[in-house]
């Protein structure tokens, strides 16, 4: 084939350009740390990367949600601890009062203690988490346990019974509240056969004042029913909390393995990339040096 100088020059130029282009790509990969700099670099890899990023972002949000739920459940738990303690004290008082050797002064002291316990129970029912009342169902902007203005029942429930559900894993929700009417058995919501906690205590007070030992004895059953109810609810909250812990663990594991997968998809394998960079540098150098060598010679150099 007949070769002209222009052919050699343009071939040399093409080769230098294309090796320089490949060199620049390799440089980019090493210095940016990213294997995929635009979708056309790896179309399926991009699809995978987008899907992984979304999933990881979702999981991070669920972890945040779950932290908030755990924190609210912990406040709930403390409030319920104090309710349990108070009700146990009420039971002790009742037992004591059922004993016929209690004096009139002692009975007066008992009724006043029961009054105090009732207000502290009401206060527990109106526990707040930040600004919101957590025992009122979805009515979180006003106290759920309100004074009814009459003697019996002494307190009424101003909330509703909505369970507030929060998503803590891709297909799992958890309830983050406990409804006040269930804890205090308002309107027989939890134990239909017994009156609510406050009415029970109010009745107990009146029975102690009247010195009706038999009625006081009978009232203990109501106190027990309410106490057991609260204990059951508290342990259910505990179970919810520990399920959340487990879910968190497995979400964290998922997140770690997905992040690793994302990095494998998107990021440069530095060892390989540096090796490739060196190879391409050498190729470019060879192309340039060959161009320099052959483009200098023509017949004109040898004609005197």
């Amino acid at each position, binding site marked *: *084939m*007949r*070769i*002209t*100088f*222009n*052919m050699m020059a*343009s*071939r040399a130029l*093409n080769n230098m350009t294309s090796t320089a282009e490949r060199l620049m790509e390799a440089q980019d990969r090493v210095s940016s740390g990213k294997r*995929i700099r*635009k*979708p*056309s*670099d790896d*179309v*399926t890899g*991009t*699809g995978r*990367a*987008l*899907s992984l*990023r*979304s999933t990881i*972002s*979702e999981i*991070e*949000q*669920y972890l*945040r*949600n779950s932290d*908030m*739920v755990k924190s609210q459940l912990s406040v709930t738990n403390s409030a319920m601890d104090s309710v349990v303690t108070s009700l146990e004290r009420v039971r002790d008082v009742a037992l004591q009062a059922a004993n016929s050797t209690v004096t009139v002064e002692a009975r007066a002291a008992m009724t006043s203690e029961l009054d105090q316990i009732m207000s502290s129970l009401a206060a527990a029912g109106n526990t707040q988490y*930040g*600004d*919101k009342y957590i025992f*009122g*169902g*979805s*009515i*979180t*902007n006003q106290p759920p346990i309100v004074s009814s203005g009459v003697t019996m029942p002494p307190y009424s429930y101003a909330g*509703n019974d*909505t369970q*507030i*559900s*929060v*998503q803590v894993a891709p297909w799992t*929700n958890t309830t*983050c*509240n406990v409804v006040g009417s269930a804890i205090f058995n308002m309107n027989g919501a939890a134990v239909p056969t017994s009156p609510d906690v406050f009415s029970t205590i109010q009745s107990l007070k009146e029975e102690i004042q009247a010195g009706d030992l038999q009625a006081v004895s009978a009232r203990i059953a109501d106190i027990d029913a309410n106490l057991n109810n609260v204990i059951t609810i508290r342990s259910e909250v505990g179970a919810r909390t520990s399920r959340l812990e487990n879910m968190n663990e497995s979400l964290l594991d998922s997140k770690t393995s997905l992040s690793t997968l994302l990095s494998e998809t*998107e990021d440069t394998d530095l060892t390989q990339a540096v090796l490739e960079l060196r190879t391409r540098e050498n190729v470019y150098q060879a192309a340039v040096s060959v161009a320099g060598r052959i483009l200098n010679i*023509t*017949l*004109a150099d040898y*004609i005197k």
Partner: protein
Amino acid sequence: MSSFFGINVALSALKASQYAMDVTGHNIANANTEGYRRQQAIFTANSPYTNNFGSGSTTTQLGTGVTVSEIRRTQTDFLDSQVRIENQLCGMWTAKNEALQQVESLLSEPGDNGISAALDRFWNSWQNLATSPESAAARTDVVSSATSLSDSIRNLYENLRSVQTDLDRNVADSASEINALVQEIASINNQTVQGRSGDYQPNDLIDRRDLLVEQLSRLLRIEVHGSGGSNMIISVGGKVLVQGNYSATVDAVIGDNGATKLVWDDDGTDVALNGGEVKGCTDARDSLVEGYIESLDDITQAIVSRVNAIHVTGFDANGNPGGDFFTAGSDAGNISVDAAVLASPSLVAASGVAGGPGDNSVANAIANIRKELLVDSQTIGESYAGLVAKIGSDARESSVHSEAHEYTLSNRKTQRDSIAGVSIDEEMTNMIRYQQAYNAAARIFTVMDEMLDTIINSI
């Protein structure tokens, strides 16, 4: 036969060698001229002189020297047509590739700043609101992530439209380029006709014309008929563009859909585009980028209508029923958070229960739109990822094709160069040849002169 016959023969040799040297000089001077085809001086022996020269009755012929009968331009018609074919393919794919590279760079995917990440943050902000439906900060966060999502979508839309505008401009520019080229080709055709009839060979004019035809072939897919002489016909899609000294005109007009297209000036019909840069531009603009815009619209409309549909069933921070969250009926070009909500984030509805500000069912429902199959049986996220993948694979395809055709074009040009290009080594060799011939002819001249001198002066 005259005594000075030999001198004339030597003279013809001198002239021919000198002429050939001039052609060599022209070749070397134009070694780097684009489109120049190597020219060769063709020596032909002159008509012999027939007569009775020697003793006896035999008739012999005596040669009368040499003349340069033709300065032959190297013909490469077949390779020219091969180059033209590759050129239009190359032009088409390169135009598409440039447009798609631009589109790709607008996406910022995969990354933290693209629409995909903005979507994730948007859904997450509703989850956040669901965990604290009374919180004003959570509402502000929802509005701000929605605003940032809307901004990203509108941005991409506007950028895609501006790529289309650029392509429009390219088409319009190519119309004037085409007109200039064909006018010049026609005028050269005219000049070559005159040249041929005057019996000189307009080699350099033809070189220039072939170069123009090659440039034209990059813009449009043309068919060239005729041997490349003055009877050349160039047509596009069956309609004549150039014939002899006639050239048609094309115009760039705005078609029904707002896009620029090429039409013939004489009858307003569309120019048939079967290849070339113009086709690359119109394909990229009308099927590829337009398709991306449609997909983006579908995705946006699905988000807007679904979020709004759920939002209006909810109740805001003041216990009032929720209104539109996004401006109703908006698409990718004008998506935005509803003006009232933007001004007052407390209008964001999280609760599904009137009077129950702690309820989060609406916030949960909106957050879970993330999982609903809303566009072609895919989630919003999957559908957008599909759009990104389509752009990526279209860009990859056009990049691969354009590179392959560049390579083939370069090979074809090399093949043509191999035949028609100027080889400095060859010209140097020829130069030496002609110089030696010239020297020898001059020598004959001298000897003849001495011989004549003997006759004239010595006898």
